[in-house]
């Protein structure tokens, strides 16, 4: 369907559109069966994933560049394409994180045009998960849920806990028991009921699939998942708008469950469909994983028809440690179809990349950000990412939450007496003076 020709150029009514009329329901991605706007994540005929369906002709009547530009700088400026009826009630200040031209990092990598989409500073919980949670919990309120929850590798835990607290919702947050301290504290502080499960994320996820329906609670990434996943599109909308309503040649995104990369691309395609882009949405999508948990990159590289799950993920990038990714098949298919590629990197490369990003651009990303940058570097070196094209790296979480990953890698501070002589002596020694034992040693 091509709707650009019928798009009304300017919203003159001044009335905020509501997606009540714009979202037609849920649709199975496999068989196309239609469902109402309900808390259900899979097709009861074939178990296929349900996805939000929009009336794009109706969207086009009010969703214009001018209308978007006149709205507050939050993710809700793209509200016609986010499945919330009426005003959002949760996460009203989420999104519009910086898209940074990263020239120092570009020089280090040997590419011409590089950007960082920095969701490490997203509000309120410092990760891209605030986007999906804002939509999911607004929908949860709409549908009348009083108790919400999630299965999380860490960032989602914090986001559900924080946003549920602000909305006055009761929250159950289930996590693998070996998560980083920052992720655990970052959920517990908000008063959520945090449950650590003896097992890996896939065990947690399976349990949550059973809990959500048994108790009739709104689990953001189980029964509310079709709505939740749409929130990730806002990152794609923001990238395109910040680039002057064009899309980059390449996007590199981290992959855990494999949803984000698909939604970024869907955002670009929707803008193209609605006639809002300068030029076609021909972005090549590149997916990043850690070698210790690489089910999707392995599928892309081998050309396998099925995603082979990883039984025991083992990587410092715990936020990406999903061995059985729900959207792995769709992600690998998309990557191939767009002409992109996927790679994975060992933990040592993840840490090196975290330091490179921090030292060149002043951005402290969590381990997943290290994965994204390290994979980007690998793909550039292999010639799979064109050095002359424009590239956006998606940084999805904050380094403050994964301090354990670098404690053994960074030097501890040099200690001196409070005298000018001591400081002068230090400066004379030069860089060698700062070559100390790892930071972790000072804290043991």
């Amino acid at each position, binding site marked *: 369907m091509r709707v650009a020709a019928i798009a009304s150029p300017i919203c003159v009514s001044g009335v905020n559109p509501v997606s009540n009329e714009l979202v037609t329901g849920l649709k199975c991605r*496999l068989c196309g069966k239609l469902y109402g706007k309900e808390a*259900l*994540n*899979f097709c*009861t*005929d*074939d*178990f*296929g*994933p*349900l996805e939000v369906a929009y009336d794009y002709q109706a969207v086009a009547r009010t969703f214009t560049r001018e209308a978007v530009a006149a709205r507050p700088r939050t993710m809700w400026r793209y509200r016609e394409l986010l499945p919330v009826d009426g005003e959002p009630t949760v996460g009203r200040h989420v999104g519009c994180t910086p898209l940074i031209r990263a020239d120092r990092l570009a020089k280090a990598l040997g590419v011409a045009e590089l950007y960082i989409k920095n969701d490490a500073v997203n509000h309120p919980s410092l990760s891209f998960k605030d986007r999906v949670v804002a939509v999911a919990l607004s929908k949860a309120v709409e549908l009348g849920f009083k108790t919400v929850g999630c*299965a999380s590798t860490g960032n989602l835990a914090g986001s559900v806990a924080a946003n549920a607290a602000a909305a006055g919702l009761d929250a159950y947050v289930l996590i693998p028991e070996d998560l980083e301290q920052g992720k655990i504290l970052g959920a517990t502080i908000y008063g959520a009921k945090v449950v650590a499960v003896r097992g890996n*994320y*896939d*065990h947690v*996820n*399976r349990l*949550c*699939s*059973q809990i959500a*329906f*048994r108790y009739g609670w709104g689990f953001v*990434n*189980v029964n509310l*998942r079709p709505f939740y*996943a749409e929130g990730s599109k806002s990152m794609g909308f923001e990238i395109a708008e910040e680039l002057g309503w064009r899309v980059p040649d390449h996007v590199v995104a981290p992959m*855990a*469950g*494999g*949803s984000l990369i698909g939604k970024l691309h869907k955002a670009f395609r929707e803008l193209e469909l609605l006639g809002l882009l300068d030029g076609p949405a021909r972005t090549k999508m590149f997916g990043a994983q850690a070698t210790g948990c690489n089910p999707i990159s392995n599928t892309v590289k081998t050309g396998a028809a*099925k995603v082979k*799950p990883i*039984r025991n993920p083992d990587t410092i990038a715990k936020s990406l440690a*999903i061995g*059985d*990714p*729900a*959207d792995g*098949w769709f992600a690998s298919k998309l990557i191939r179809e767009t002409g992109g590629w996927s790679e994975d990197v060992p933990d040592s490369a993840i840490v090196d990349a975290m330091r490179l990003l921090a030292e060149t651009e002043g951005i402290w990303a969590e381990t997943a950000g290290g994965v994204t940058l390290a994979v980007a570097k690998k793909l550039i070196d292999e010639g799979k990412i064109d050095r002359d094209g424009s590239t956006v790296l998606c940084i999805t979480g904050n380094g403050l939450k994964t301090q354990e990953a670098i404690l053994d890698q960074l030097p501890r501070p040099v200690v001196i007496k409070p005298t000018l002589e001591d400081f002068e002596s230090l400066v004379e020694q030069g860089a060698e003076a700062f070559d100390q034992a790892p930071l972790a040693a000072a804290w043991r």
Partner: protein
Amino acid sequence: MPLVRIPTPLRPQAGGLDKIEAAGSTVREVLADLGCQHPAIQERLFDGGEIRRFVNVYVNNEDVRYLDDLDTPVGAKDEVSIIPAVAGG
């Protein structure tokens, strides 16, 4: 006899039951017997002879893909769980 745990959204196709006894010594046999008892479940779980892409099956707490898939042995006291795969992330 092994017990099969039915996910909540599929219970209308299983007479409203959350657990159903089904005979068999492998996952394939147990699910086949479940299908005989409730044909509507059978067509939802299988595409031809294969389990559908977005269905996960567990014997007790173990995903059968890490065992012998449909040929995974099932004991009389084991529990087989059908879990929709589209969750998480």
